[in-house]
């Protein structure tokens, strides 16, 4: 038990053995960015093949490996760990805690991730190739008909699940036990609230995913027939289990993004978040509803009419709390004193594009119309509007917003704004035309397409290359900031920023809040 005021250890052991929430947060963020680039590279392969009709670059089987790995790596490798990294950095600082409640487990939950993804990526070099059954891995394509590498995929998913569950338990324990005196639940920043709810979702559904892949493992290697009708099982059972995990999963991805936006919009509006309490209730309602809507991903599997109606009505209901959140954000901006630094631009981009994704989500919830939308590019467009323009844009906003606090240096605003506009334009050129080809009848997950889809696909590919390239600018900007950005030393880097993380020194010292701070005033009052 050494001196409590020491700095970080030196060399590689600092990172291997660290239990410091800031170090672990940093590792999560860099790891997820590396995965973002890898998953993005797979997306570039997909868009390059789809640039023109006909097979040019890859074989159809390899194309399916690319779509599968792109989805898996973006969801499990890029977006989820990035928000865990953000939680690690920010939650202790926001609630006035010295560190996470379970720091050794924190180290472990990060360090099992890189081997898991190394194993997943290594399947590309195995005989029979990588998993090629889509990130949703529907049985029996993923069991009886899968390449042998599926076993490694199952192991990787198990490890990711363990990591997520440990991370969530840590967040729940931290938020429940380590808040500074006076930091009541209804004073917590929205980012902490959204993560607390997300952590409960994760603890509830990751075991379900683990169950699904374990049943696959049994079907593949131990002669069971969970998902094979020939042995008395049911392939549709797989989809029910998968989406019972999968629908909460998409809220696991988007709720922390909501939290980030709820921190940043008030800061650049110089006005408290409108309707804090209703934001908390809306988040909780969304989390609850996420458990009873899963089968809207399965309208065409032949459910009984009663089931179809139930899931349609329940899904439509999600529009209510989601609408409340959007209305609250806009009312927060209303009659504020707005400025448009890069984090705010990304949040406004989020607000516009996520709302569009919400509208197409409402359209998709209408079961009879979904018979025409299902598994087309309309769905691809919809979920990229909520995943990329939702989660990734808000994550980008978060990096720009808190980076000066983390490293004590200011990023280049002009480069940041350029990054925003290229991303925003590239994103829309990529995904807006996908609504059109989807409605016109182009199925998703096909390596080649009929001639009437050619123009919009070419446009989409050009947009994707632009969007992809803009992320390299982001990487450059972040590295340049850390290495040689203009030093900042004010505690409150942004004049409108509120919260305990802005009361510590800049850059944030290695240990913060070893003594609990005085919690000044409730969030929402100035």
């Amino acid at each position: 038990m050494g001196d409590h005021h020491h700095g970080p250890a030196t060399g590689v052991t600092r990172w291997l053995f660290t239990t410091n929430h800031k170090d672990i947060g940093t590792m999560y963020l860099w790891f997820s960015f590396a995965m973002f680039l890898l998953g993005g590279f797979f997306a570039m392969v997909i868009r390059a093949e789809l640039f023109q009709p006909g097979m040019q670059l890859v074989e159809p089987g390899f194309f399916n490996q690319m779509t599968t790995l792109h989805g898996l790596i973006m969801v499990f490798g890029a977006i989820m760990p990035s928000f865990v990294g953000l939680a690690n950095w920010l939650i202790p600082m926001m609630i006035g805690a010295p560190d996470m409640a379970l720091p050794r487990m924190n180290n472990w939950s990060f360090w099992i991730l890189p081997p898991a993804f190394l194993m997943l990526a290594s399947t590309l070099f195995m005989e029979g190739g990588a998993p090629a059954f889509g990130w949703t891995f529907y049985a029996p394509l993923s069991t009886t008909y899968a390449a042998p590498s599926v076993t490694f995929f199952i192991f990787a998913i198990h490890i990711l699940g363990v990591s997520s569950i440990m991370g969530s338990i840590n967040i729940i324990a931290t938020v429940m036990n380590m808040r500074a005196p006076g930091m009541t639940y209804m004073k917590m920043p929205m980012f902490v609230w959204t993560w607390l709810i997300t952590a409960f979702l994760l603890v509830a559904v990751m075991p379900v995913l683990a169950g699904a892949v374990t049943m696959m493992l049994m079907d593949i290697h131990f002669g069971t027939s969970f998902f094979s009708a020939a042995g008395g099982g049911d392939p549709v059972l797989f989809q029910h289990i998968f989406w019972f995990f999968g629908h909460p999963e998409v809220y696991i991805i988007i709720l922390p993004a909501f939290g980030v936006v709820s921190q940043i919009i008030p800061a650049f509006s110089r006005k408290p978040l409108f309707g804090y309490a209703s934001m908390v209730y809306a988040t909780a309602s969304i989390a609850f509803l996420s458990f009873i809507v899963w089968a809207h991903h399965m309208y065409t599997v032949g459910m009984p009419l009663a089931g179809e109606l139930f899931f349609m009505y329940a899904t439509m209901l999600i529009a209510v709390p989601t609408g409340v959140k959007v209305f609250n954000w806009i009312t927060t901006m209303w009659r504020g004193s707005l400025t448009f630094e890069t984090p705010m631009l990304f949040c406004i981009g989020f607000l516009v594009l996520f709302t569009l994704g919400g509208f197409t989500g409402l359209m998709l919830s209408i079961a009879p119309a979904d018979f025409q939308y299902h598994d087309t590019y309309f769905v691809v467009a919809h979920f990229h509007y909520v995943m990329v323009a939702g989660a990734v844009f808000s994550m980008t906003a978060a990096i720009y917003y808190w980076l000066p606090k983390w490293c004590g240096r200011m990023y280049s605003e002009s480069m940041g704004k350029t990054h925003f506009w290229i991303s925003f334009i590239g994103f829309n050129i990529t995904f807006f035309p996908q609504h059109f080809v989807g409605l016109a009848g182009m199925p998703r997950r096909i390596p080649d397409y009929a001639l009437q889809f050619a123009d919009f696909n070419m446009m989409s590919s050009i947009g994707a290359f632009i969007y992809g390239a803009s992320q390299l600018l982001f990487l450059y900007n972040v590295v340049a900031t850390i290495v040689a950005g203009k030093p900042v030393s004010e505690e409150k880097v942004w004049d409108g920023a509120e919260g305990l993380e802005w009361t510590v020194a800049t850059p944030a010292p290695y240990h913060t809040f070893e003594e609990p701070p005085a919690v000044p005033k409730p969030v929402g009052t100035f």
Partner: protein
Amino acid sequence: MGRIFSAAAWFLVAPLAEAGNQINMSPGVTEMGGNIFELHMLIMWICVGIGVLVFGAMFYSIFAHRKSKGHQASQFHESTQVEVAWTVIPFLILIAMAFPATSTLLDVYDNDESELDILITGHQWKWKYEYLDDSGETVVFFSNLATPQEEIYNTQGKGENYLLEVDEPLVIPTHTKVRFLITANDVIHSWWVPEIAVKRDAIPGFINEAWTRVPEEGIYRGQCTELCGAYHGFMPIEVHAVSRDEFDSWIAAKRGIAAAQTELAMQTLSVDELMDEGKRVYDSACLVCHGAGGEGGVGNAIAGSPVVLGDIAAHMALVADGVSGTAMQAFGDQLTAVDMAAVLTYQRNAFGNNTGDVVQPGDVAGTKNG
């Protein structure tokens, strides 16, 4: 700024739309397709309306409440009335949407009183159609992609219906309630023809129902919409809707051919007959993977293959059962006895494999029963 860019985006899209690129769902030709289209447009316009209000307020705020114009921030931050209003009003809008959605869904699920039943079975990567009807011979056939490999691999110009054409289309009569019973043989597929508003998953071991009533004669094209393996993008659907009379004569002819096949299976065929028929079967079932000259490709070479030059029973078993874990499918239930006999004979004597072996339909039936 955002508005300028969305306007710019529209100018990019508009010329493409005018150049014949479809940008919206098609109402199709059926009444149900029309209803679904109207529902889709209704929800979309409601969303557009809400979007105009929400984004209008946001962009007004971005325009008017900026610090650079010296706007001072007010500090209001909650209002229970407002929160209740924007919870209740969207809820009422949703209820209004639910009525037409429910009635259309009830219609989709009304599979009763069909006049013609067709069993559709998804295979990797082709569709099998079977007309369920007690009168006479069963009409059953496979429908394969007809687009040649040369078009897919860009050595030849692409035809108008690239990837949407089949060797043998599904034929249905107009003005008739046709019920589709949809299942699969291996993995999950999904049978979708947008213009007649039918999409239903084909699930191995389970049978789903869907129906259509097509009022206009025409050719309607679709594709498999559930990822089903490497060639998921290459198993299109082509439906020919024809008049009742034309349909009756078509199905009578098909029954005639089926009867002749049954007849043929009893007979001993000449080597020439087997070779001709075998070439036809080879070209439609084997050529894609094994090459036009038997030189191989995705599959092993047929020319000089030890399997083809070896024991006839082992050769037949391989073709009938496939090789699990590879692209070699089980053709046993896809080929008739005549087809099987012919293709085996052809493989054993073409491409320089001159074994001189002749396999007769009777040998195939013998093997199956044995």
